[in-house]
C-alpha cells in the first residue's frame, strides 16, 4: 500500500505556538477567507489556544455560503420543470432555496447526482446523450479550472446536452470589499496556487495585509504567528507561508484556461450584495454551454429568511452566536442561512464545535 508520509509532527510548543499563546499586544482581527481554513481551525482546536486579544473571523470563502438563494431556485427550476440531470458537489445539496433544497427535489423525483469533479458531469453527459445534464458550477479560482476543462472537452466533442449553471467567483474584489472587516487576512492557499502571489502582494499598496496559508496544523499556526509578528511592525504586509504549493506566478496554464473559457462579470454574494467584476461567466464563444441561455431561465430573485444574519457574519460584523435564529430555528439539520449549510460555513462550524471551543 502506498503511503503518503505523515509529516504533521507535534505543532504544539513550537516557536509559532509560543508566539501565539504568549501574545499580549493590541487586539488583532484576523479573517480566514477560506472555508476549509475555518473547518481545519475548528477541527484542530486552534481557537482553544488563542488569547482573547486575537479574534478570528470566518469570512466569505465558502462558495456555498456566498451563493445567493436565486441560484438554488434556478437549479430547482432546471431539475423540476426542465427535468435535466443536475450534477453538483455534495456541498450544495442542503442549501435552502426559497421553497426547498436540492435534497427535497431529489425526494420528489428530480435526478440529482453528486459528483467529485465537473469532469465526471461532462462524462455523464457524454455517456447519456439523450439526457440534458447541467453542472452547478460554484467555486473560486481553485475550482474554476476544472469546470473550464469540462466545457472545453464538451466543446471539442460537440456535446449539445451539457451545460453549466455558473455562480463562480473570484476573490480580488472581495478582499477590497472586506478590507475594513479585519487587520489581516489568512489568504486561501489553494486559490493562490492558481492565481499566484502577485495579487495579494499588490494589495499591501491599498493597505490590505495578509499571509498565504496552508492547511496543516504547522501551516496554520505559522501563518498566525507571522501575522502577529508582522502586525507589530505597523505597516501593511504580505507573506507567502505556503511556498511548497504557491508560487509567485501560480498556474499560468490554469489562468489562460480560465481566460479562454470565462470572462469576468458582476456577481451577487449572499450577504455582501453585488460586487463588480467578482464573478465569472462563459465567454460568448462558449455560450452554448450556458444553462441560463439554453433553458431560457427567467431572472429570479430568491428570498432569504429576513431574520438570518449570514451577511453580517461573513463580514465579521457579528458572530454566529449573535444571530437570533442561531441554534434554534437554524441548525445544521435544518439550515436557514447558508453559513449553517456547509460544514465550512462559519455558523455550522460554531454550532458543531460548540461555539466556545
Amino acid at each position, binding site marked *: *500500500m*502506498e*503511503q*503518503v*508520509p505523515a*509529516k*504533521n*509532527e507535534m505543532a504544539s510548543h*513550537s*516557536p*509559532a505556538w509560543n508566539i501565539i499563546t504568549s501574545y499580549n499586544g493590541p487586539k488583532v482581527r484576523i479573517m480566514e*477567507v*477560506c*472555508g*476549509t481554513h475555518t473547518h481545519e481551525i475548528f477541527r484542530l482546536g486552534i481557537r482553544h489556544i488563542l488569547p482573547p486579544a486575537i479574534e478570528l473571523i470566518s469570512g466569505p*470563502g*465558502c*462558495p456555498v455560503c456566498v451563493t445567493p438563494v436565486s441560484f438554488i431556485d434556478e437549479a430547482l427550476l432546471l431539475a423540476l420543470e426542465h427535468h435535466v440531470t443536475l450534477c453538483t*458537489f455534495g456541498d450544495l445539496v442542503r442549501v435552502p432555496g426559497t421553497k426547498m433544497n436540492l435534497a427535497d427535489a431529489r425526494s420528489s423525483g428530480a435526478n440529482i447526482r453528486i459528483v*467529485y*469533479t*465537473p*469532469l*465526471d458531469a461532462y462524462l455523464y453527459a457524454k455517456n447519456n446523450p439523450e439526457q440534458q445534464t447541467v453542472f452547478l458550477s460554484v*467555486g*473560486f479560482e*481553485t*475550482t474554476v*479550472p*476544472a469546470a473550464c*476543462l469540462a466545457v472545453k472537452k464538451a466543446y471539442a466533442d460537440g456535446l449539445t446536452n451539457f451545460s453549466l449553471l455558473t455562480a463562480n467567483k473570484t476573490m480580488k474584489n472581495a478582499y477590497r470589499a472586506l478590507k475594513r472587516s479585519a487587520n489581516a487576512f489568512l489568504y*486561501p*492557499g*489553494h*486559490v493562490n*496556487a*492558481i492565481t499566484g502571489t502577485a495579487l495579494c502582494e499588490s494589495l499591501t499598496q491599498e493597505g490590505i495585509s495578509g499571509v498565504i496559508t*496552508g*492547511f*496543516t496544523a*504547522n*501551516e496554520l*499556526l*505559522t501563518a498566525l*504567528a*507571522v501575522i502577529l*509578528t508582522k502586525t507589530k511592525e505597523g505597516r501593511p504586509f504580505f*507573506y507567502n*507561508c*505556503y*511556498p*511548497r*504549493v*504557491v*508560487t509567485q506566478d501560480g*498556474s499560468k*496554464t*490554469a489562468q489562460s*484556461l480560465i481566460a479562454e473559457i470565462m470572462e469576468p462579470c458582476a456577481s451577487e454574494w449572499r450577504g455582501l450584495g453585488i460586487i463588480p467584476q467578482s464573478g465569472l461567466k462563459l465567454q460568448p464563444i462558449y455560450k452554448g454551454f450556458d444553462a441560463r441561455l439554453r433553458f431560457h431561465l427567467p431572472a429570479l430573485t430568491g428570498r432569504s429568511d429576513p431574520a438570518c444574519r449570514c451577511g453580517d457574519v461573513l463580514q465579521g460584523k457579528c458572530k454566529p452566536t449573535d444571530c437570533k435564529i442561531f441554534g434554534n430555528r437554524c441548525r445544521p439539520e435544518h439550515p436557514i442561512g447558508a453559513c449553517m449549510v456547509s460544514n*465550512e460555513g462559519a455558523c455550522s462550524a460554531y454550532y458543531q464545535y460548540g461555539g466556545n471551543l
Partner: protein
Amino acid sequence: MCVGLAARVLNIKNGIALVDASGAKREISAELLDELDPGDYVMVHAGIAIAKITNDDKAETDAIMEAL
C-alpha cells in the same frame, strides 16, 4: 473553500494521472501541469492536479519561523 489533498503520482498518460493518497487511488486530470513524473507530489482539487508540490510542511514552516 477548496478541499485539497496531497497525493503521489503513480503513473501518467495522455494528461491523466493516477494518484495515490495513503492508499486511495483516483485518476485525475494533469492537464494543468507540465513535466509531471511518477513519484511527484501534487495538490488535488475537484479531480484535477492544481500544483506540483513538496510534501513536507514541517521543513517549510520551520524555515519560515527561522527567517522571521
